[in-house]
């Protein structure tokens, strides 16, 4: 797995070197305006790794004989599909539509690979259907632009073991200060309050997002990188303290060890996104019925701010010859009740639309959570996510750098702040090496 990632990143470098000798201008030119294609049925290709996406597309194809969509698939974005997109853009055979996570959109934007769907009247009109912060994730700083249609969101909340907290008479923490205090009591009772994710930096990004950290900014000319702003440092310092006092466990996330910590009642809470509901339910089957969901702990009592972890969009590539039809499909996929219900059922996607929070599937109580209507908590959280968080154009590299430092910090070498400082300077280096204008 590790070796594969290396190989993929080696490819990234070699592909940059090869840009000069690529060709791909054959065939008709790509469309620049967003107008319906003249005459005849349109065939679109759509690359996505969402489990079960074929069945959703099948519904569309049955209803739209004139716009037929063919699904292509592959590993997840950072697992190779993003690199494939870049290669295909270079070779001129990119699909019409692609699944791109919010944190990867800027990298396609700086390579000028995306069609601006803001030019399509149907997309511009649909703007108000989406939760505002998700729209910011695709407009990338230009309110009239849309480099994708928001698909899903990952508003964060706190999963916790209601039985254990009650049994030991510990109050459910509402602020981060209470959370740290609870961590001591949980440790005294033989558990860990949670697991600090040493290798999946996205969780930390969500925590920083909630605290008001803003890692990147783009004024239209230049990027600013700020992985070490005060808010982010505050979050890093907070978790560093818990790590130093050995109040959190640090098993690598998404492993069986990690599942086991939850399944064997060692870890009592998890600050995670809405899709995490399914991760616990499948990873910790023995604890069924004992989990509940509460809003994320707050930095100041009485506030209600949430972070976001994950989320993705459906983008149209610049090389597409049928952007209008592609936009029609993308809108149906991400706003219609039938598609959103299916995406939720097949892949646990949580809709990015305002109305999506009212899907019947999201109104039900969930047995694993003691029949709590957990999605109501997430619907609230989704409204509370602060809107102006921007991702950088080289997140894969930034994550890798930060993750190296986090792993060291967890094993006692250096601190999380050191790791962020190092990631800060290497991110600036990466931007410079790709000739992306950057301050500093």
């Amino acid at each position: 797995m590790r070796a594969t990632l290396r190989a993929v990143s080696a490819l990234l470098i070699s592909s940059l070197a090869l840009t000069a000798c690529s060709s791909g201008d054959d065939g008709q030119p790509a469309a620049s305006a967003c107008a319906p294609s003249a005459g005849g049925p349109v065939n679109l290709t759509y690359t996505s790794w969402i489990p079960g996406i074929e069945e959703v597309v099948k519904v569309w194809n049955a209803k739209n004989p004139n716009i037929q969509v063919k699904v292509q698939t592959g590993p997840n974005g950072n697992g190779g599909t993003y690199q494939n997109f870049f290669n295909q853009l270079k070779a001129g055979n990119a699909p019409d539509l692609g699944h791109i996570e919010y944190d990867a959109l800027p990298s396609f934007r700086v390579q000028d690979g995306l069609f601006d769907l803001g030019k399509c009247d149907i997309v511009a009109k649909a703007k108000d259907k989406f939760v505002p912060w998700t729209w910011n994730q695709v407009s990338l700083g230009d309110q009239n632009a849309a480099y994708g249609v928001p698909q899903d969101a990952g508003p964060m909340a706190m999963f916790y073991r209601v039985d254990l907290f009650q049994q030991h008479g510990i109050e459910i923490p509402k602020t981060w200060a209470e959370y740290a205090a609870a961590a001591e009591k949980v440790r005294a009772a033989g558990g860990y309050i949670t697991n600090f994710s040493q290798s999946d930096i996205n969780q930390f990004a969500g925590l920083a997002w909630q605290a008001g950290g803003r890692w990147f900014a783009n004024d239209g000319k230049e990027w600013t990188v700020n992985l070490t702003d005060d808010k982010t440092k505050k979050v890093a310092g907070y978790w560093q303290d818990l790590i130093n006092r050995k109040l959190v466990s640090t098993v690598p996330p998404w492993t069986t060890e990690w599942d086991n910590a939850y399944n064997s009642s060692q870890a009592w809470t998890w600050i995670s996104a809405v899709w995490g509901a399914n991760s616990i339910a499948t990873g910790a089957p023995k604890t069924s019925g004992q989990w509940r969901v509460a809003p994320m702990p707050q930095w100041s009592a009485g506030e209600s701010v949430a972070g976001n972890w994950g989320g993705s969009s459906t983008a149209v590539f610049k090389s597409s010859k049928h952007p209008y039809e592609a936009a029609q499909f993308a809108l149906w996929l991400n706003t219609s009740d039938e598609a959103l219900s299916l995406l939720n059922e097949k892949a646990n996607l949580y809709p990015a639309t305002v109305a999506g929070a009212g899907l019947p599937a999201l109104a039900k109580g969930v047995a694993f959570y003691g029949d709590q209507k957990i999605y109501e908590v997430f619907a609230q959280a989704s409204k509370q996510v602060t809107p102006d968080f921007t991702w950088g154009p080289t997140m894969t590299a930034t994550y890798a750098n930060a993750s190296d430092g986090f792993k060291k910090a967890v094993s006692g070498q250096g601190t999380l702040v050191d790791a962020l400082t190092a990631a800060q300077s290497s991110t600036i280096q990466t931007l410079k090496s790709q000739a992306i204008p950057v301050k500093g």
Partner: protein
Amino acid sequence: MSPAAAPKTRESLLSRSAAMLVMGVCTIYFLVPVWWLFVGSSKSRGQFIDTDPLWFAEFRLFDNIGDLLAYRDGVFLVWLANSLAYTGGAALLGTLFAAMCGYALAKFRFPGREILFNVVLSGVLVPATALALPLFLLFSNFAATNTFWSVFLPSLVNPFGVYLARIYAAASVDDELLEAARLDGAGEVRTFFAISARLMFPALVTIFLFHFVAVWNNFLLPLVMLSDERLFPVTLGLYSWNTQVNQLPELRGLVIVGSLLSIAPLVVAFLSLQRFWRSGLGAGAMK
């Protein structure tokens, strides 16, 4: 046995048991992951998490295999068949080409022979990884990406096989034998298939196995070339599933059973061809 030989025997006993120890440790080291995989494949998802990873819980291997084969209309079987077609087909044809090429380089004198051989040899140094992207751009020019051929054709090339074939041909095919065949009126092609290829057979098995493993493990080429799930080899398919585990944790069990099934063809190939493989390696070592 004479008394003088006694200390020698003891010594060799010592070194023999040391060798056995090293081999025993290596064997355990190499087999434990396979054992883990086998045990893991036999468990339900819940037991996989919370029971001893190196020993069995409730034995559900066949249920798990059933789940795997039923998942998404049996796409796993399609992957397995693809892998066999890519790997088996490419290894068979590739071995034939390598054998002919190596044989020609060993047995015919022609201008530029050494240069040609050196160029082929330098091909050994270029990792398959580095070629995936140029190949993708090349195939894009012919609109041939995302096809069976985009993975199959590049897999036919095997410079290391040519190198081995040349050495084996020089070692095992006698020039006088070839002259006799020519005197008897056999054409070069017939001589190759009727006499030389048979003499080189153990070596060809070695080349076949090397090639088989190389193509089987060449993960990056299909990753870059293919986006139609029905064309994936099993390695890429399992990798794709594995990257979706965060989203759909149920997939982890399928990935583990799938990995177990996917190593079966390799094990079969090695065990059944082991006899030839050993003698082939030996022939190379002699020269």
